[in-house]
């Protein structure tokens, strides 16, 4: 079956531009996570949705970052006024149950480069 997909796979932005990154989770999955992975590092948590509700946004690094999942399926991570330090791979993961020990299925990520 289809896994988690993300688009675009690569994005080059000029500093100050706004970008929108899309995540299509596995159909029917309750949980949706966004993580940020800097080069050579482990992913770091950004935000969590359970269905359409954003239950945790404690990892969003600034108010330039926000995410939405209006219908409980597709999610968009938006970064306003991009900065060079935003360059990273943005990973989306979905889970079927919403409980603590659920397996998270990751997409391939969107590699963002801010020039």
């Amino acid at each position, binding site marked *: 079956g289809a896994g988690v997909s993300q688009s675009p796979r690569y994005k080059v932005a000029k500093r100050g531009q706004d970008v929108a990154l899309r995540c299509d989770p596995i159909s029917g999955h309750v949980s949706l996570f966004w993580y940020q992975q800097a080069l050579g590092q*482990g*992913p770091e*948590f950004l935000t969590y949705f359970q269905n359409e509700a954003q239950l945790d946004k404690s990892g969003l690094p600034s108010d330039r970052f926000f995410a939405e999942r209006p219908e409980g399926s597709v999610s968009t991570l938006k970064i306003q006024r991009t900065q060079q330090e935003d360059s990273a791979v943005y990973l989306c993961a979905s889970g079927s149950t919403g409980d*603590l*020990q659920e397996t998270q299925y990751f997409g391939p990520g969107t590699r963002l480069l801010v020039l």
Partner: protein
Amino acid sequence: QQQVKQSPQSLIVQKGGISIINCAYENTAFDYFPWYQQFPGKGPALLIAIRPDVSEKKEGRFTISFNKSAKQFSLHIMDSQPGDSATYFCNTILRAGGTSYGKLTFGQGTILTVHP
């Protein structure tokens, strides 16, 4: 904040050898310890996981050993194969403040290279 310390950063093993990756954590409220495997250009994928009430879990060639008193856990890959070459991340999940979802805290990663 570094809640999980992973070592080594990189590891080179000959085919058929044993690969060992170690992780140490600080917060005793961590409740679940999954390992994820990531190939270049791909997202991480769950490899194996353990709960803190279990000292060891084995799945095929992969074994997690857990030492609760030392707050350490490790991944052993037996009979390592070139196809195992990837980055491995230990993770912890914290049960705190009534949180019921699995917010992963990744280690720094270990790049494993298995030579044929």
